[in-house]
Every structure is written in structure tokens, then in C-alpha cells.
């Protein structure tokens, strides 16, 4: 698999993502500069976390207009795999590749901590090998991570199995008290109808290195690698 990690000005999880893909999962990785228009023949595009263009307007609102994003949108629309983590998820929603939007956390503060995720289904490459009755400990770090979509969209996401995971407690129970940011239905991430574009606020790449004492995030990447269908 050849991965391309987009580097926007202000991206700050790009190197973490590259480290996990390259050093831990032994995949080929290239950086895709925001001003470029060539995807370098990658099989999978990752939009990393960070504060693209400073996120002064609204998270992800400027990044979607960058030259590389035009190509990423075309790539996704042709069935290419794209995943956005945190700010990358916000960019994908702004670009219309994923339904819904991300609002300020209910607390009105930035929140960085470990949370638990319960995979919602096994119906996509990202979660196919995960246990839907188990909670995975994955960190979050965001100020605008409150996922919101209207009822019709939510019903569709649910019936098409487009929800990646819910915020839960350590026993995989989805409870309001375990929802860190107020996301509707405790949704932590979603994919598109074609199941080739994924977006989630939690950072699986921050839970993939044994040195850090938590490798729950690796399961997400391993599921991806096992279940991706080459274009």
C-alpha cells in the first residue's frame, strides 16, 4: 500500500501519522504538499490532524480550498480511499466528502485525554476486524469535535452502517457521561456511503506505539490494511 499524507500549513500530526504508517506498519508513505496537484500515485490519502491554515475562520474551512484538496476530492469521488483524523475529519466535512459538521465542544474548551470507543459495525474496512462489543482506548485532542448532523442524515448513517464508532465507557457502554464533547448520538467518526472516505475525531495514530503503553489504535490500521480493496 502506498499512503500519501497531506501536509497543510499548520498540520501538526502529519509526522505522527507518517511514523506509524512507515515505522510501525511498514508501509510506503509520501508527503503531499498542500500547494501540489499530484497525488503521486498513492492508494490511500490521509488528512492528518492539526490546525490547517491556523483554523482561524472555522476548522478545516480554508484547507478545503487548497490545490491538493481539489485532487483529493476527485480521487475520493472515483472511489479512492481517504481518511481524515481530527482536523482532517473537519476538512473532509467542509469539503462535502463526509456528511455532517463539527461544532465546538459542549465545554467550550479544548479537550485532550484518552477516551473509549465502541466500534459501531464491521461494515467498512476501517472496522471490519474490530470487536463491536469491546471498547478501544484512543486519545482525543480537539476544540471542535462535537459531531452534528440532522435527523434524516443520522437515520441514513445508521441504516447504511456508516458510523465508525461511538464514544463509550471502558465497558463499551454508550452513555452520555462518556461523551466528551456532546457529539450527537455519541458519534466519534463516520464514513461516506461508498465506504471509501473515513473521518474520525479520535487519534488512533497516538495509540499505536508500544513505547507509549497503549496500542489499541493499531487495530484500526490493521483492519484497514487487511480489508482495503485495491482500486
Amino acid at each position, binding site marked *: 500500500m502506498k499512503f500519501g499524507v497531506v501536509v497543510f*500549513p*499548520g498540520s*501538526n*500530526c502529519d*509526522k*505522527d501519522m507518517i*511514523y*506509524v504508517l512507515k*515505522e510501525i506498519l511498514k508501509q510506503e508513505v509520501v508527503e503531499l504538499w498542500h500547494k501540489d496537484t499530484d497525488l503521486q500515485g498513492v492508494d490511500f490519502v490521509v488528512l492528518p*490532524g*492539526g*490546525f490547517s*491554515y*491556523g*483554523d*482561524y475562520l472555522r476548522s478545516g474551512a480554508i484547507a478545503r480550498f487548497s490545490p491538493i484538496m481539489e485532487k483529493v476530492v476527485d480521487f475520493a469521488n472515483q472511489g479512492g480511499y481517504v481518511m481524515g483524523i481530527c482536523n482532517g475529519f473537519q476538512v473532509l466535512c467542509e469539503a462535502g466528502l463526509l456528511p455532517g459538521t463539527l461544532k465546538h465542544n459542549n465545554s467550550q*474548551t*479544548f*479537550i*485532550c*485525554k*484518552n477516551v473509549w470507543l465502541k466500534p459501531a459495525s464491521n461494515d467498512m474496512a476501517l472496522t471490519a476486524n474490530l470487536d463491536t462489543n469491546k471498547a478501544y482506548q484512543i*486519545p482525543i*485532542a480537539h*476544540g471542535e469535535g462535537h459531531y452534528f448532523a440532522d435527523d434524516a442524515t443520522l437515520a441514513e448513517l445508521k441504516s447504511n452502517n456508516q458510523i465508525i464508532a461511538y464514544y463509550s465507557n471502558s465497558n463499551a457502554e454508550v452513555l452520555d457521561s462518556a461523551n466528551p464533547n456532546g457529539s450527537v448520538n455519541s458519534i466519534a467518526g463516520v464514513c461516506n456511503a461508498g465506504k471509501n472516505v473515513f473521518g474520525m475525531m479520535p*487519534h488512533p*495514530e*497516538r495509540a*499505536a*506505539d508500544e*513505547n*507509549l*503503553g*497503549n496500542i489499541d489504535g493499531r487495530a484500526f490500521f490493521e483492519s484497514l490494511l487487511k480489508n482495503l480493496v485495491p482500486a
Partner: protein
Amino acid sequence: MSEIAATASGVETAKELGLLAEEYQKIVEILGREPNFNELSIYSVMWSEHCSYKNSIVWLKTLPKDGPHMLVKAGEENAGLVDIGDGLACAFKIESHNHPSALEPYQGAATGVGGINRDIFTMGARPIAQLNSLRFGKLESKRTQWLLKGVTKGIGDYGNAFGIPTVGGEVYFDACYEQNPLVNAFSAGILNMETDKMISAKSGGPGNPVFIIGSFTGKDGIAGAAFASKDLTEASAEDIPSVQVGDPFQEKLLLEATLELAKTGAIVGMQDMGAAGITCSTSEMSAAGDLGMRIHLDKVPTRQADMKPWEILLSESQERMLAVVEKGREAEVKAIFDKWDLSCEQIGEVIAEDNLEYYWHGELCAQTPAQPLVLGGGAPVYYREHREPAYFKQYKEFDINSIIVPSDLQATAKKLMAHPNIASKRFVYNQYDSMVGTVNMSTNNPTDASIVNIKGTNRALAMTVDCNSRYVHVDPKVGTMIAVSEAARNIVVSGGVPSAVTNCLNFGNPYEPEVYWQFVNAIKGMSEACTKFETPVTGGNVSFYNQTVIKDSTEPVFPTPTIGMIGIVEDKKHITSIPFKSKGDLIYMLGENRNDISSSQYLVNIHGVENSSAPYFSLEEEYTLQEQLKMTIRKGLLASAHDVTEGGLFVALMEKSMSSGLGFDITSDSAIRSDAYLFGESQSRVVVSVNPENEDAFIDLMMLNGVEFDLLGHVTKGAVRIDDVSWGDVADYKEIYDTAIEMQL
């Protein structure tokens, strides 16, 4: 020169700018004429306390600054540089942003984070982790709550966007900081000595072009250094334009561009613009290189159209750098900054003479030699009078027998756990991105010092900031020795070896002899302890005037010499964490328990007694304990370790329990008062847990060196028992501990 003489500014103007009459005379002697307003402005900021260290340098020079690992010593570059093995070096430093944060907590704290990180990456080192040390008034005060929220958000918003994890720190609350909070920010960066190039802060090569890089220059933060060099008063709010505004996005771009630039080798020298902006960077770089500069101020890109030369000279707009580039390689440099969409303008050139010439549309508007402006050059140096305050001897008369042991110790324990100085600071640290960079090894395995992974090696970096300023107040020398010892102890307990120190010296007005006495004794204590632990002081900063004049009374803050220390974990398997590991493990105390409650959180917050001396401390005992710990950890005999600090043994045990969910069953020492045993803060003590399989080896090793040790009890599934009496369950205490601060906000 005629136009310069014609606009001479007199001694009255000098005084308005914060200079003394004698300093004005000195300027006249240096220039051989009366200075004009621009020049006077230059001198006023360069000779301010903040830039010149004029009231502290005599004593700072007595600190130990050389050690086996030092690559760049204090004062030589923007930050100290320490060899951490495997061809890597660590640049690290701590700085205060107290005065701006007192007026505008959000921007004040944010720009503090920006400034300290620029110091690190200006040297060509990529910042890897940050810490901070914060002090506020009592939490119940509305002003404190406003400051706490603003400072936390400011640090978070800046550091999070910049993308360097905040991996640890400390927060204290005490009435003495009510008007004047302390905001000390620490950053550490890594430089690969083989593949990266350190960037010097020295100018070089007459004829080389001088560039200003990064943000445009605006009217924000004009004369911030002078503002930071006087007392905070009710009128200080009028100084709000002295507070700068931060832009972490620009800083992030500047970081990436600077590190890319470092690799080209086209850079001769570079300095970030912090205090006193263009003035300070041009004069310090020139003086360090024994050269001068010709600068065209009208070429500086500005935010406002109507900026005057002195405003450009003094502006403290953030995210700017001054760079001297090798002549002929300008295009290469500009290409890098174009790539990152950053401004990069040539504003002058290096000249051979020791002279700074500032031009405005072709006309010379200020000139002075560089050397007299700077620390170590001609900047004033003062020996200040100091006098022992009356309280010092009086506090030593404290007698533990004047305090009655409370009848309900469990209630006392719960009250202590809820005190903001002890309770969880999660309201603060959850707002910081502590995990970006995927190097924070303490997230899932909490340690006394923060442990930062150095990817691709078997090593890790340990770092900590420490200062119990109450101890320093009651006994500046001993209190500062304790601060250094605690920092070293935190590193040792976590499995590291202490390496070097950066300090942030927060004190009151140096012209007050009693305040200056605190300063002098703190330095003496620091010297002694740093020498003992072989941790040289690589730099830092001094922040005087931390006191507030309200009506007629002056309230100095507690003297607060914050110690930032780094250490090296030579092998990751040495990392030893706080949480208990298994039920049935044995709990031991290393070090001696004493009948001592002096200056403890217990004495101050439960009994309301502020007048007592420092807790028991012996530097020799501390050193022996740490050496013993290093050995025990290397042998792999400890399941967990945590030192005893605020709140005493009970809180230390609780912290080991709350982070693991396991409880403890201990038996106290009948020779010691129960309150002193549980809550006393006598120093040089570490609580460890030992797997029963390792107990014999542990005892054999402990017998070798004469360090006192004591079996306290064992780890339980969750129950807390002391002397066969149930104290409830860990979960009860954790709820109190976790929510105490947020419930008050």
C-alpha cells in the same frame, strides 16, 4: 550627525522611559553627546531589568554553569545545549510571562509559550515537549478564576496549534499571587549533532545581509520589556498595549522554515525577537559577533502605515526573527520562506565597526555602539543592598506542640485531597494537547518527571519543573535547595539521571533590601544544590517586580525560583512509574519519617498557621537517597515509586492508588505524631512498592548504603486501611480529588 544632536532628549524624558538619572549620564558619556529620543528609547529597553539583568547578574554569575554534558553554556546562545547521548543534544529553557498575564491572561500566557519555543528552534533544535509552572491567588477569588481560565486557554490555544505537546507542569494557589500571577513556560528541543546544524545567535561577516523574517511589525507590545521591569499598580491596566498578541500559526510556519533553513548552512546567525524586538536582536547579535549593523527601519514590513522609527525599534510583535545570511545566498533563503508563505525582507547589512546605525528613509535616526547596550558589555551592573527580614528568625520559633492533632484524621485527609494545591489539575492539563508528537510516555504510565520518548533510540528524556515557594519564602536558601532536590528526585524516581537546570527567578522589587535578601539566599541555595547534583544552570530568566501596590501597601509574591530540570533515561526499561502495580506488593518508605509538619499544606490549610520554617531537609541525606534509588531502579527491583511532597505520605500513597485503582493497608510509626506521619512534608522520602519475589534482593541492596527504609504495609485491591482501621475505598477519595477544582469554577 547634526539632525541627531538637534533633537536631543533630556533627562526628564529618560526618567519617563524608566531610566535613572545616573544611567542618563552614562549614556551621554558613551555617545559623547545628548541622546535623541530614538536612542533614549533603545537604551531604556536595553538597560531595563528584563534585558540587562543589571540587578541580578552579579549573583547569577556565581551559579555553577559547567558540567560534563554541557555543549553550550549559560549566556552563550539563546538557550543552553546539553549532550544527551547517541549524537543528540537537548536545548531547553524556561521563561516568565508574569506581567502580561496579570493584565491580559490569554495573550500574556500564549505569547509566553511562543517566546520560549522560538528560543529553542532559533538554535536549530526542534521543540519536542513543553512544561509550565503557574501560580495564582486563592481559587475562590473571582480574579483568580478569570486568570486561571485565561492563562490555561492561552497556553493551550498557542501550544496546541503550534503542535508541541505540553507534558507536565505545576499549578499552585496562594493569596500572595492574587494580583500578580506567575506564568513560567518551559520548552525543550532536540538537535541531532551529526545531521542538523546548530544556529548561532552571533552576527558575522561584514557585508552580509540582515533579514527580518516572519510576522509584520505592529504597535503591539511596544516597550513590553520596560513594562515588565516595574511594579504592577492599579494604573498598570493602562499598559495593556504593552501586551503582545500571539499567532501560533505563524510560529508553526516559522519553525518549519527555520529548521529547513538550518539545513542549508546559508545562515550565519539568527535570533528571535522577544523583549525589545529589533533593538535587542540587532544589538545582541552584533555585540556577540563584535560587529555592527546598518539597519533601514523603513524597510521593515509594518502592520500600520504610520509607525514611527522608535515604535519599530521597540515593537514586540511576536513571531519575528532577525537573520544574518551569507552574502550571495539570499535567493536560496527567500525560496524557503516563500514556500512557507512567510515574509522575509532584507533590512540592512553587517558592518565591521562596533556601531549600530538605524536609518529612516535614508536619514540616520539613531546610532550607538552595540557593546554598551548589552549584558556583559556596557550595561549597568548594580550591587544591591540586602537585609534579613524579621520574619525569618520568628518563623523558626514554630513549635509543633502548639498544634493539636485533629480528632478526625479521615475528615482532615478528605479536606486536604480537595485543596486546590493538592487536588487534580485536570481542569488545566486536559486543555493542553499532551500527546501530539507521540512521544509522551507518561500519559498511560504516570511518572514523577515527564518522560519523553526519543524515537529511534533506547533513550528517553525526563523533564520537570518544581518549586514549593512557601518553603522558599520561609527559608530562601533551604527552600531553593529543596526545589532543586525535588526536581532531581523526580527525575531519579522516574528512572533518569539529572543532567542540567534552567531557572526562572520570580521575585519582588530588587530595590527592597528584604526582597533582595531572598534573592541572594535563593541563589546561594541553588548553587549549593546544583553543584551537589552536578546539574549546571544553563540559563533561564529573572523576573523582578512581582508584587502589587494596592493603595499604600506593597505585597511581594513568595520568592519563586522555579527550577526546570532535564535528565536522561539511559534505558527505557529503567522507567519507573507512580501507580501501584499488583495487589500484595509490599510498600516501603525510603528515607526517614520525621515528627515535622512545618510549612506543610496540612499546617497552612487545616490549621491556618503560616508562620513556620522549612520542613526538615539535609542535602547530604537527599543525595544519598537519590544515589540509592538510582541503584535500586537499575537492578529492576521497584514496581513503582513516587516521592513524598505536598500533602505528605497520605497524599503520596493516594496518588499511587488513584492512578492504579488499587488501595493500601499500612501501619504507622508510633514514635511520630499521627498528623506528622500522614501529612508532614519532611524531605528526602520516596514511597515504593516491591513485588514480594524481589523483597530479599531489595532488602539486601538497601542494607548496603545506610539509607533509612521502612516497611509500611501492602497494596490492596482497593480498600484503604491505616492501623487496622478502614479509611474507605480509593474511589471515594478519587472523586473528591478529581472534581475539587472544577466544582469551584
